[in-house]
């Protein structure tokens, strides 16, 4: 018995090398990434609560990571920097989450607020 995953990954890589498949191409992957970025942007702009706003940002970064990996696998000839970029985006997401939540905690303690409108005085 040969491992299932090895088989699946071999099949995928053969298919990608032979460009036999119809749907999973760089263009469709980039369209999917664009859709995720679009939905994320909508969320980040429209949500009133801080945490929901951060979810929009995370969804945008999700699309960015997918695009980076797609370029790495199909257009970049496996240059290792493509994978590294994705790792860096993951680190950025962790930093964004941690700082975001710490700020929400600090703001909430000061103002009992968790919505963007409550901080209108920050505009000045």
């Amino acid at each position, binding site marked *: 018995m040969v491992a299932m995953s090895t088989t699946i*990954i071999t*099949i*995928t890589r053969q*298919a*990608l090398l*032979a460009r036999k*498949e*119809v*749907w*999973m191409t*760089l*263009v469709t*992957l980039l*369209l*999917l*990434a*664009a*859709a*995720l970025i*679009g*939905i994320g*942007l*909508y969320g980040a*702009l429209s*949500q*009133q*609560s801080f*945490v*929901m706003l*951060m*979810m929009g940002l*995370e*969804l945008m970064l*999700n699309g960015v*990571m*997918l695009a980076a990996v*797609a370029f*790495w*696998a*199909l*257009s970049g*000839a*496996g240059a*290792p*920097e493509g*994978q*590294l970029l*994705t*790792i860096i985006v*993951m680190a950025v*997401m*962790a930093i964004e989450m*941690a*700082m975001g*939540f*710490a700020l929400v*905690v*600090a703001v909430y303690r000061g*103002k009992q607020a968790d919505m963007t*409108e409550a901080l209108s005085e920050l505009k000045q």
Partner: protein
Amino acid sequence: MNHGILVDIAFLLLAVLAVVSGWRVFRTDSMVRASFFLLLSFIAVGAIMLLLAAEYLGVAMFFMMGVEMMVMALFMVMFMMNPAGLNPMVMVHQHRISMGAGVTAFLVLGLMALLTRFPNRPLPAGLEPVASLGHEMLGGSMLIFESAAVVLLATMIGVVVLSSHRGRYGAANEGSLPPGLAPGGDPAGKPKEDQDGGHEHHHHHHH
């Protein structure tokens, strides 16, 4: 036998899952559900990464996002009204503008994807994705990778400072004022307020 069709079916299902669950994040009444829909979207994208032979990144998505969304859900229950989603709720502003911005972003990026001709250079047959990533992180791009580590450390310190209940001069919810210059005097470096100055510590009530 053409196995490419299996890859295609898997990709299409995962793509639909990623988009639909990403959309549901902003269309559900419960904050906890929202964060788990986002997790679902991340998992679908991670599985697509596995299909693209990014074996480490795809799996890393699962555990990174698993923990992140768990923390997010906790914060939801802590801060948000209606965490359980028992009441319908809309908490949005500038709805039309945001919708327009989202659609515009999708159209612009989508047109770029459709109209640009990208070079067709797939992964070389013998490439080991995990080893290649490891050699890059601790080889050529070590400075970048280690800077990310330092930034993470700085984040940890910053987060503890920002969210710690204990300020430099006592508990945050008791004013956390510096001691006076003279024993029992006014807090140092703090302008006097109009009415309740004097020797007692100021208590700030915002509501």
